[in-house]
């Protein structure tokens, strides 16, 4: 149980792994904007290329990256169908007297949407979940969102909550396992019976788990108080994030990519997203 991998961080040495987590958050946002800027076949071709490039750059196992698309297959299929059947255009592909009519524009639209969603998921996955540990991400968000503190958004508190959650996930997972085993040893059965019986069978797990989680919370609060925790007022940090040149280049490249997409949109010929 001690080896529970939470989050999907995949340790590897790659240019993307090495980027500052804040840069990666910025890159993700820029990349999402780029996917929405794409308007025609040429720019979408560029987007596809960029996504493949990212996969290669990240040095992640390709199979694993594409498996991450599995949960959204349904969404992809759904948008495709909607686009294929609902888009009206000028190039009718089916005979005119058919009840269902499919236009060439619909097929193109479906393809574009699939590419957009795929690039979106791959991009976020590669920048944030696969190459950045959850804790680095929390850190990055706290610092990037720091200006929001001025308008009384409790950025630090959220980050602290996140850190504590990450710290306790393995502990509580282990504990859940332990409690389940203890109740099983008293003859509890979690796997058979109707839905109601099974839901009821969870009570002997959930109550002890809550009781223990609350106890841990009280203990932790006292321990934090003893260690002079009083919010982020006057707080310093052991780990200091520093932007490096490579972070700047990465962001510039991404902005360049956005500009390229706009150009391609403007000058490129061929089918257009309608």
């Amino acid at each position, binding site marked *: 149980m*001690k080896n529970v991998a939470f989050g999907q961080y995949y340790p590897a040495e790659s240019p993307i792994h090495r980027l500052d987590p804040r840069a990666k958050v910025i890159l993700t946002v820029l990349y999402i904007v780029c996917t929405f800027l794409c308007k025609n076949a040429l720019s979408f071709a560029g987007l596809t290329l960029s996504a493949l490039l990212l996969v290669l750059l990240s040095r992640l196992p390709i199979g694993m990256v594409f498996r991450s698309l599995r949960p959204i297959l349904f969404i992809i299929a759904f948008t495709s169908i909607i686009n294929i059947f609902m888009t009206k255009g000028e190039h009718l592909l089916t005979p005119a007297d058919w009840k269902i009519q499919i236009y060439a524009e619909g097929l193109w639209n479906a393809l574009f949407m699939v590419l957009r969603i795929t690039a979106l998921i791959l991009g976020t996955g590669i920048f944030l979940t696969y190459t950045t540990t959850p*804790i680095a991400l929390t850190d990055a968000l706290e610092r990037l969102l720091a200006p929001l503190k001025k308008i009384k958004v409790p950025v630090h508190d959220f980050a602290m909550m996140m*850190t*504590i959650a*990450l*710290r306790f996930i*393995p*502990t509580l997972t*282990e504990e859940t396992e332990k409690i389940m085993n203890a109740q099983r040893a008293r003859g509890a059965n979690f796997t058979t019976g109707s839905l109601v019986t099974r839901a009821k069978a969870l009570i002997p797990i959930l109550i002890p788990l809550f009781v223990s989680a609350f*106890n*841990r919370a009280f*203990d*932790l609060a*006292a*321990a*934090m*108080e*003893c*260690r*002079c*925790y*009083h919010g982020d007022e*006057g*707080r*310093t*940090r*052991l*780990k*200091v994030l520093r932007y490096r040149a490579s972070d700047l280049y990465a962001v510039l490249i991404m902005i360049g990519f956005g500009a390229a997409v706009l150009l391609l949109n403007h000058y490129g010929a061929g089918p257009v997203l309608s």
Partner: protein
Amino acid sequence: MHVPEGNVERSKKLPEIFIHAEDLCFSYDAEGPDAHPALKGVSLDIQKGEYVAVLGHNGSGKSTFAKLLNLLLEPTSGKLTVAGMDLTSSGIEEKDLLDLRRKVGMVFQNPDNQLVATLVEEDVAFGPENLGVPQSELRKRVDDALNTVDMTSYALQEPHRLSGGQKQRVAIAGILAMQPQCIIFDESTAMLDPNGRQEVLRTVKKLNREQGITILNITHYMNEAAEADRILVINDGKLLLDGTPDEVFAERSVLQEVGLEVPQCTELIHRLRERGISLQGSQISDAEACADMIARAWKAKHGKGGPANG
């Protein structure tokens, strides 16, 4: 501000009072209908640099006493001065509170519930970070603290992968990094296996002897208490016994009455004396001393050369 540095010679000539309690009382829910007094008038002084064990069975008030010392709980009545600060005065500000907690650190029982960060070194840094220690010094403090508790090689580990004893040592390092004058251990070894307990106790002793940190070890292990300079026995919210381990363990019947056992060696000495074997001496808290005492009596009885055939 006093900053303990290595090998502070503990000055016996100029005792400096670190904790002063006078008729100290505490009730849970003091104003409420079912006020539950946990501490009923405790008076004592603890000197700077002392190693004190606090004994008592569960619910005796020993943990309550500890929690008053850094204002996790506020005294209901009486007087309490810690590190020169009057904790019963009404004018305590947040700044004073932080200063108190910096000086009086606390290590708790459950090793899992006091580590905050997902990396060992970041956890150790948590206290000084809160105090606003500048980044350049932070690094040094974290490294020093980890070095003192012998956990340097684990700096980049995740706490949940450590053993119980290691987690407790990380917790100690977290306190040390705040450069405290006193550390309170609230049954910090209760959930550890024998190895873990030894690791922690060795560290505690080292902190007291080498850095002159005042130690309060709240425990129900007699063998642990025997290592202290002084033992306080608390029962039913009152100070029952106060003295060196030898003095306290001599009061075997008093201890038994309140559900505490003397260490086995002490028990043996007491029982041998009850059986009419005369054993001279008052050092009864440590195995070596007990062995000397028994061997002396035995040799005296069997003649200087040992038993007849020897």
